[in-house]
């Protein structure tokens, strides 16, 4: 059963054309390689987190992960505390990923073993993770990122930032392959589409869901690593608002909130669109508060259009 490609992708594409065309008319000077680099740089963290969020939602079962921002913040803080306490600096990447995985598995455990509703489970862990990150450090940024990471975090090849090229993009491709070309992918879409039938057919729903939350955590750990390598320091509230923006990006990207619908490339496209829009608005010196309003409006409109298309298709 192949997932249907929703008209959202078409709408996204159209919006992107509008944004780019608008920029072309109003500020052609914006079309420089540096703009592309900047957009990709600022997209990386959100893209990683949105991918995790997407995987969790596609698995269905009212899946959602409100704790993604908290996981990034806590992974950053714990990794830096450990490195500053004596662990070798070279282990920082592994630490970030391992910590993220652990935090994500906690979510998975709460949802699959304790059968807590994901909204509630991840709300609880959101408070615990983000609160702990700030409380442990008293709000102070953690310095001491090992020097070898900075050239990677801030470097670019042919205008493409290294973290995006070497981490985000491959992960998206891997996720795409997973979802569309493996049995795991079929299971995931099956679960999302109709969990009861999935269970009846023998799909290990709980295990897959646990893996999805673990993946979301690991991706949050990746985002933590990118933020450390890029910013050169560990800020305990770096994950602030990521839960809302990642949810916006996944919704815009065509992931159905009920699960079982949508693909990861839509999410990547949505992330790029959002950041391009942000950058474009900044170029035009539009007040940043309008961004928040515009993104909210776009979200509503895109979903309205999608619903209209659905109604037309089914009537």
């Amino acid at each position: 059963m192949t997932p249907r490609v929703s008209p959202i992708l078409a709408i996204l594409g159209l919006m992107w054309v509008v944004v780019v065309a608008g920029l072309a008319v109003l500020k052609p000077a914006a079309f420089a390689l540096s703009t592309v680099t900047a957009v990709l740089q600022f997209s990386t963290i959100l893209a990683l987190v949105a991918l995790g969020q997407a995987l969790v939602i596609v698995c269905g079962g009212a899946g959602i992960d409100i704790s993604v921002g908290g996981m990034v913040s806590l992974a950053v803080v714990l990794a830096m505390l450990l490195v500053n306490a004596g662990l070798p600096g070279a282990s920082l990447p592994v630490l970030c990923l391992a910590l993220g995985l652990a935090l994500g598995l906690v979510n998975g455990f709460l949802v699959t073993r304790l059968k807590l509703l994901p909204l509630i489970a991840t709300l609880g862990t959101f408070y615990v993770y983000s609160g702990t990150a700030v409380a442990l450090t008293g709000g102070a940024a953690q310095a001491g990122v090992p020097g070898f990471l900075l050239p990677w975090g801030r470097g670019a090849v042919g205008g493409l930032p290294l973290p995006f090229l070497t981490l985000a993009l491959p992960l998206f491709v891997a996720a795409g392959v997973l979802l569309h070309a493996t049995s795991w992918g079929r299971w995931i879409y099956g679960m999302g589409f109709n969990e009861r039938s999935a269970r009846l057919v023998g799909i290990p729903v709980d295990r897959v869901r646990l893996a999805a939350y673990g993946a979301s955590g690991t991706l949050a750990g990746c985002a933590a690593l990118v933020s450390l390598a890029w910013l050169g320091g560990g800020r305990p509230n770096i994950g602030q608002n990521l839960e809302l923006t990642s949810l916006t990006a996944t919704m815009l990207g065509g992931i159905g909130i009920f699960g079982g619908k949508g693909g990861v490339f839509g999410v990547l496209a949505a992330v790029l669109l959002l950041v391009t829009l942000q950058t474009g608005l900044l170029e035009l010196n539009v007040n940043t508060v309008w961004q928040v309003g515009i993104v909210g409006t776009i979200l509503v409109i895109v979903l309205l259009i999608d619903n209209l298309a659905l109604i037309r298709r089914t009537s």
Partner: protein
Amino acid sequence: MHTHSKVALLTAALLAVSSTFALAADKKVAFVPQIIGIPYFDAMEAGGKEAAAKFGVDFIYQGPVDTNPVDQMQIVQNLIDQGVNAVAVSVLDASSIAPVVEAAKAKHVALFTSDSDAPRSGRALYVAQATDEGLGDAIIDEMVKRVGEDAKVGIVSGEATASNLNAWIGFMQARAKAKYPKLKLLEPQFAGGTAQRAAQIATDLMTANPDLKGLIGVASTTCPGVGQAIETASKIGKVIGTGYCSPNTARAYLKSGSFGYSVLWDPKELGYLTVWAGKQLIDGKEIPATTTPEGMSHPVTYDAKTGVLLLGEPAVFTAQNVDNYKF
């Protein structure tokens, strides 16, 4: 005429107009606050606009909608990409500009800090309202003047992650330890960004410490919270409230007595000085150790070693003089 050709003509016209603007461009100075929508930074914006008009530069004011350093950095990066000649940032912390310092240098953009510093980031200079030490000292000294040396004083801050607020708290604690050993300064509590939380925490502090004599609100959002908490708890006169608050926000509480005083500087002047500093950097002019920029009423000092351009001493507002200020 066909719609098609009309559109083409319009596009061409727009392109021509915008490129004309690009050619005849004035030098641009930008300021990026920590967050927009706060009267304090609005006043800095007003000062910046005034200076821009005076010194013949374009002024750009852009800031994030929440205290997120990545959002702030995105704005800074964007301004650098746009080719703005000088960019001043009130940094949330060093990570707001650290990654873009190199890019700025490569593009010959003067990147400097104002209102909040990132000392070791490679910024061109720092436009300081007053020294962090001066600010911490002033608020403690004034408090001791009013509550005595042997008193308990609470601190309500905003975001735990704001480096400038934490710097001031640090100096408050140092001052208390050095000069007023009998002063009991409580551990700072953090209210986040809303006046509601600040009021709740201030109230709880007063409840937990009935002998509390003073409350210091460190972030501008904590000012109305602390002032209102003292009023609601009917502790006017028993607890002296204060903070780094703008006169407009503090006025009601100074008049009612819940605030004894407020320590600040003139953010409009700070904004003015920031744009002036930007112009100096663009023109490549050396800033002398003491100078009075055109349009300012008093001299400012510059320490070339630390790169700190100091506006002056902090000002103390009381119920008597608060009406002289309109920001």
